[in-house]
């Protein structure tokens, strides 16, 4: 019984949250990796682009709520996401036309494009803060829990409760659907294949008659979809605050690099690698050992490897180790 309790404890505090957080990171990491692979620069505006898409999701959610449209047990935001995606993609294409295109046509070095993306970051951040403000916002509605801790205890008779938030389930489901569609698109359709060809070898792809304009446009459209959904899911699960989104850029970058930058599947798994290691290393295992070990051997301290304040340190250490020992990432991306 104690053993079962311990398993449920880990499931409740580590596995489920890490899976949800990992999915959110994975979407961001695929976004970074696509931009890097096809447009060939590190996009420092990642976090702010995600917050931009989330902002539109929130605005539409408010609108639907004020009109009285809702999805019942599901959050209204799910209905708002498609509309937000349209605006987001429009914004992305606008930025590309007025900012990034010039440097791409001139074949500027990637560093210059990264610097330009900082300019975009400033502007996007300003727009988000001017429109919706810098404060913390929750826009979740509908049924909060799929399984409540109390109900679970009554059902199974265990000491430990298992609480699964509906947002966590939605996050994981949406991620699975979205990512499998994306991989199907990249691997099976003609456009997807030409995107991969363009990413592998630009000159060869151009020679074989691939239209670069179309590739770039589709990349931005996919990026817009990923950024909006990833951001909205994060906001539903936790809350929306522009500054947190900006900071999320760091684990997202770490995930993309760990997975092998330029490799979407690597980025997808990289998100989970980062999320699980962050949570595994910063969780206090005291209660777990209390269940597993006999009473005489119970630990005094929290049995926490790292305090939760050092979340970033975890993703960075993984990044350094990977860069030192496998410079192309775990799943063979471009060699750095």
């Amino acid at each position, binding site marked *: 019984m104690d053993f079962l309790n311990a398993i449920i404890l880990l499931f409740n505090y580590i596995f489920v949250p890490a899976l949800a957080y990992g999915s959110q990171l994975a979407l961001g990491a695929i976004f970074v990796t696509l931009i890097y692979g096809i447009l060939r620069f590190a996009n420092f505006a990642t976090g702010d682009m995600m917050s931009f898409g989330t902002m539109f999701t929130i605005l539409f959610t408010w609108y639907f709520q004020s009109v009285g449209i809702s999805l019942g047990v599901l959050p209204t935001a799910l209905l708002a996401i498609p509309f937000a995606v349209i605006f987001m993609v429009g914004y992305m294409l606008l930025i590309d036309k007025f900012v990034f295109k010039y440097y791409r046509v001139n074949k500027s070095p990637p560093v210059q494009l*990264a610097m330009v993306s900082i300019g975009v970051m*400033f502007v996007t951040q300003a727009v988000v803060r001017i429109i919706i403000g810098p404060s913390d916002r929750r826009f979740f509605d509908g049924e909060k829990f799929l399984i409540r801790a109390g109900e679970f205890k009554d059902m199974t008779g265990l000491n430990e409760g298992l609480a699964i938030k509906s947002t966590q389930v939605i996050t994981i489901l949406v991620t699975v659907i979205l990512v499998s569609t994306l991989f199907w698109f990249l691997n099976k359709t003609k456009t997807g294949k030409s995107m991969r060809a363009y990413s592998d070898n630009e000159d060869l792809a151009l020679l074989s008659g691939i239209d670069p304009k179309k590739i770039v446009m589709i990349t931005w459209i996919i990026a817009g979809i990923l950024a909006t959904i990833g951001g909205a899911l994060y906001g539903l699960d936790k809350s929306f605050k522009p500054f947190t989104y900006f900071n999320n850029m760091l684990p997202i970058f770490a995930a993309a690099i760990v997975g092998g930058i330029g490799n979407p599947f690597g980025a997808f798994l990289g998100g989970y690698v980062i999320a699980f290691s962050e949570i595994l290393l910063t969780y206090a295992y005291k209660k777990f050992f209390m269940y597993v070990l006999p009473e005489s051997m119970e630990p005094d301290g929290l049995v926490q490897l790292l305090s939760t304040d050092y979340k970033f340190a975890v993703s960075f250490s993984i990044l350094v180790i990977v860069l030192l020992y496998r410079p192309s990432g775990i799943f063979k991306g471009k060699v750095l």
Partner: protein
Amino acid sequence: MRKNLNVIAAYSIMMGLIILVGIFQSWNIALSIFNLCLISAVMTMGANIQWGYAGLINFGIMGYTALGGLAAVLISVNPVQEAWSAGGLNILFSLFLIIGMVLAVRYVLKKYDKSKTRTYIIAAIIILGIIIIRFVSEPGIEAIEEVNPAKTGFLGGFGLPIIFSWIVGALFAGGLAFVIGKVALGLRADYLAIATLLISEIVIAIIKHEDWLTRGVKNVIGLKRPAPYEVNLQQTDWFINLVEKFNSGKLSLISDFAERQAALNQFVIEGSSVFVKLCYSGLFLIVVIILLILTQKALYSPWGRMMRAIRDNEEAANAMGKNVVKQHLLIFVLGSAIVGIAGAMLVTQDGLFTPGSYRPMRYTFLIWVMVIVGGSGNNFGAILGGFVVWFLWIESAPIGLYLVNLTTAGLDDTHFLKVHLIESVPYFRFLMMGAGLLLIMRYRPKGILPEKIEIK
């Protein structure tokens, strides 16, 4: 003279703008803008050495700034005797353990050839070391943090004059840069940027949460000053006489004695804070000028030529027998050390250390905007960038407010759009910075004062 015309013109316009602020707003504001411009100039010089001279991208400026600030605390605060006796031994012992651990890792690295076993041994040393250090330091840290937590709760510093911290800050930042450079300098440019950004976040996390060393988010206030205090100045005779002499024209217009005394008092209070700020300006100006002379000398020296050669074509420079890795590490350390000085100067001027205020937007990306806008590779450009961008950063709120009022003049004062826009005026500075950066990168990619190398 003629070829430097654009430099002189740009600087006179900048100084003119600051003087205009002095006339229309107040001299106090003008001087505080000027002081922070000087500090920003030091930071941009550091970043410019790395980016402009060597083409290294360093997004960790925030971390070095914070380390400089930490140096200011550790140098100037008086040591807390009780804390030392409570947990000092444990901390010192942990320090020795860390040094021992590093030496052990170095020994293994030197002694054995690269192999899987070596990797595992190093990993084992590090993990074991961390566990032992945690066991040793934990009771010490707890004891230290319990000593009068409302006022101290940390080890304190060395109680030396705060000016020394400018050098120590440089050493701290340089030391960190050395470690980072060893690990990360082999990476390609944009990875180096991401890696340094992450490291700077970790530095901030450590400073925020290691309360025994830095008091963390409880902040350290009331640091010593290299300049006199306003309160003391207001009671010194020579200062009051000085203010009287300066304002004799205005004072002589007031006939009533009591009124005149009151007016004089007002002038003395205003004058004291201006005087203190002037003291800081003098100190900062000395630092800026010394650094400017050194960096200019370096730029035109054979070493500077070599750095440019490495920047423009790494492989060719390597083939000519220049040690690219070593030079990159050197310039990484030098640039970061200069940023460390700026960090210490900043805390010196504020008189308080607030780890919570270190944000990447303000301390990393804004500095990069300064470097790009000013002109990378040109020291005068970098300093000008620091001035222009900081000036706009401060003055963008009034400018934004003016623009909002202008564009929404037709609307009612209580119209929701107008109210909302006026509330969000502080964020117009991000918009201005971003738009400025994008415009400069597009239409003047080398900055306001572009790099100009003449062989003398």
